[in-house]
């Protein structure tokens, strides 16, 4: 029995290793036999072939043997499957909402975030769906994944055994930003988790705007540190010059409040040069929009923004 960073991960790893070991043994047996025959019965050593009488008994053995073997493998793939698929009744439910191209996690107390935080030692049940196309939620370290399908609720569950930060990937191709549709899972001590869980509606950066960007999944495509993702970065955006395409005409404008609000309300109106016109219209209240723009203002204008913008245009 292998232990992993989570209860299900260890079971899946065990099953993988047993089945893989059986396959390796079979492969070696077949290959070794083949090579031995090639060596022993090559033309130089065996100038005349002998026709071998077919033996029904041997053929039956060669059919029954693989049947038993594969049924054994099926069993080891199945033995813990029910356990892995059926969450205990007391598991903490967390909603997972996938959209192009970000993840959103919603807790029972209404708290919403783009990083999945879970307590160590307590079962967690993920109830998953998608807002647009099919995605797949994958935690490589835990060895589990399940598709997020529009119009359907799917589920996963696990019990984190160790603290740590782990990758979350989208593994069902979902369009342009697929390879950047990643998030983090943070397994934290139960006490720390309760503390975080209790401090409702306060972002790590201390800003409501950042919390909204995380909750709405904006950071799936836009970064706050100046890196280029699916869309342009937020750092240094506010107050800077932006080259956009409006009604098929190119123009350079200043990224003021009006521009930023228009970009959220009607993303297709002004498309930043060098980036595709693919941002969806997300539901945002006036108050939320003010918070977001206010936060972008704090990311402010910095010196190398112009350089980065020029760089983006040449990509």
């Amino acid at each position: 029995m292998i232990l992993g960073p989570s209860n299900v991960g260890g079971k899946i790893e065990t099953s993988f290793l047993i089945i893989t070991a059986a396959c390796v043994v079979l492969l070696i047996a077949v290959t070794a036999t083949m090579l031995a025959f090639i060596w022993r019965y090559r033309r130089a050593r065996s100038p005349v072939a002998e026709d071998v009488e077919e033996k029904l008994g041997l053929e039956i053995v060669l059919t029954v043997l693989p049947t038993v073997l594969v049924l054994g493998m099926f069993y080891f793939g199945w033995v813990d499957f029910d356990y892995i698929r059926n969450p205990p009744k007391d598991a903490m439910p967390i909603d997972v909402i996938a959209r192009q191209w970000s993840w959103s996690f919603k807790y029972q107390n209404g708290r919403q975030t783009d990083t999945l935080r879970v307590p160590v030692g307590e079962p967690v049940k993920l109830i998953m769906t998608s807002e647009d196309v099919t995605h797949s939620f994958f935690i490589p370290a835990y060895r589990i994944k399940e598709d997020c399908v529009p119009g359907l609720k799917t589920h996963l569950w696990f019990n984190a055994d160790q603290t740590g930060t782990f990758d979350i990937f989208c593994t069902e191709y979902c369009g342009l930003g697929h390879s950047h549709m990643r998030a983090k899972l943070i397994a934290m001590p139960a006490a720390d988790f309760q503390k975080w869980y209790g401090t409702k509606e306060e972002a790590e950066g201390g800003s409501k705007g950042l919390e909204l960007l995380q909750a709405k999944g904006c950071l799936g495509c836009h970064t706050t540190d100046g890196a280029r993702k699916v869309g342009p970065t937020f750092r240094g955006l506010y107050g800077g010059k932006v080259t956009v395409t409006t009604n098929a005409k190119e123009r350079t404008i200043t990224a003021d409040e009006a521009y930023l609000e228009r970009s959220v309300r009607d993303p297709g109106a002004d498309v930043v040069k060098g980036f595709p016109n693919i941002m969806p219209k997300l539901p945002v209240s006036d108050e939320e929009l003010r918070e977001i723009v206010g936060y972008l203002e704090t990311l402010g204008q910095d010196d190398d923004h112009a350089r980065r913008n020029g760089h983006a245009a040449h990509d």
Partner: protein
Amino acid sequence: MEEITAQYESFYHEKGRYKGILSWLMSTDHKRIGIQYLCALLAFFSIGVLLGLLMRLNLIMPGKIIGQETYNRVFSVHGIVMIFLFIIPGIPVAFGNFFLPIMIGARDVAFPRLNRFTWWTYLAGATLVVISLFAAGGAPDTGWTFYAPYSIRAKANITLAVAGVFVLGFSSILTGINFVTTIHRLRAPGVTWQNLPLFVWTLYATGWVQLLATPVLAITLIFIILGRVFGVGFFDPAKGGDPILYEHLFWTYSHPAVYIMILPAMGIISEVIPVFARKKIFGYRAVVYSALGIASVGYFVWGHHMFTSGMSDTARIIFSFITFLVAVPTGVKIFNWVGTLYKASIVGNAPMYFALTFIFLFSIGGLTGLIIGSLEPNLHLHGTYFIVAHFHYVMFGGVGFAILAGLHYWFPKMSGRMYEERPAKIGWFILFVGFNVLYFSMFILGYEGMPRRYFDYPPRYFTLHLVSTIGSWILAMGLAIIAGNLLSALFRGPKAPADPWGGRTLEWTIPSPPPAENFAETPVVRD
């Protein structure tokens, strides 16, 4: 064997009523049609290889050569070209067309004009697909699987590409009908179901799969077009549709399609190994029954592509169970090929090298198929590079190597010339090394969690991606040597005798290349 007369007109000379290019396009001669298909397939294969190399190049320097959007189109077109234009029509239309009638002692297929029509249909479908790559809107970016709802919403030329694949499907169905009828009706005296060449047996099984499974694909593709053009919501939950329905319909065809690709490959291997082992295949009946077993059970395992789709757990268990059952006849075949080598007298020509490598690579492909067909490991490995590695071992290591075995085995018969053994074997060796460097590293990448269809990835996967890309260059070099050797043989090779290998099937009793009518007199086969 009868004495072959020195003077005869090969099918290359006998042009029929038309001249120039029309003597090919308008021909109803199964050999001319087979040669045309082979040229088209190899052309599309080359395009697919180039796109694959471009993908590998991007993955060692994401964003430096091609952007994210281009990458998504490149892997989609790589898949569409390789699957629908190369490997699904593949062996049946090229080698099947050329050799099926000869191997059963017939002058042509049962419906020669229908055969010409399927060739035109293939060309039409291929043209539509090619137009979709260049027309305004851009090449498809959905992956070859066209998963809904993404394929309904995507802005690229999905409708055109899907229409092309729809037309190609008709070509496949009609070829299936033609071959099944030919095998039933046109066998020469003495050619019975008990001594039918194994390649013909696999074409027979394949024909039925093409006939029964392809209509499902046609319906699925029509649903996509209706969704895109008229907004019909078969797969749209907002309109009462279901995205998982698409996956079921798609894989109901596309899993049996795997057997359309691999069964005839197994047929080639079952021809090549006994010839170069200088003895009869071990367990002829077992090989036949296992082909029929694969062809029939293969319809009921499509769900193993959907273990993480949100399908019910009970369905997953049943699909996994049947998947393991279909492994049994495949294992039986491998045992029979290896068993044939026992007490043989093995001659080491290039076709045999490719055939024996097929056994090794296909075993890896098949055994890793068991790993991902298991319920628990699949939860981890689905949608990762492990899957990419697995199906390249089956498709390229299996079908691809079988095609190369067949290409060298039948090259003298088709072209009338001999190729050089040495460069063929050097090419084989480099290809084999490159193949494993390229694809085995993907097994490890997948095990470590690297998702497929990623343009960019966390830095910890870089080393294995680099190894894999270097493998792709070695592989390309191997392919280039093999192709160069065969091309030069086409023009400069020495004339081929009727039977350079000591073959036992009927194609080796007639001159190389064969006369237009195949046989001067209908042959009679005696056991």
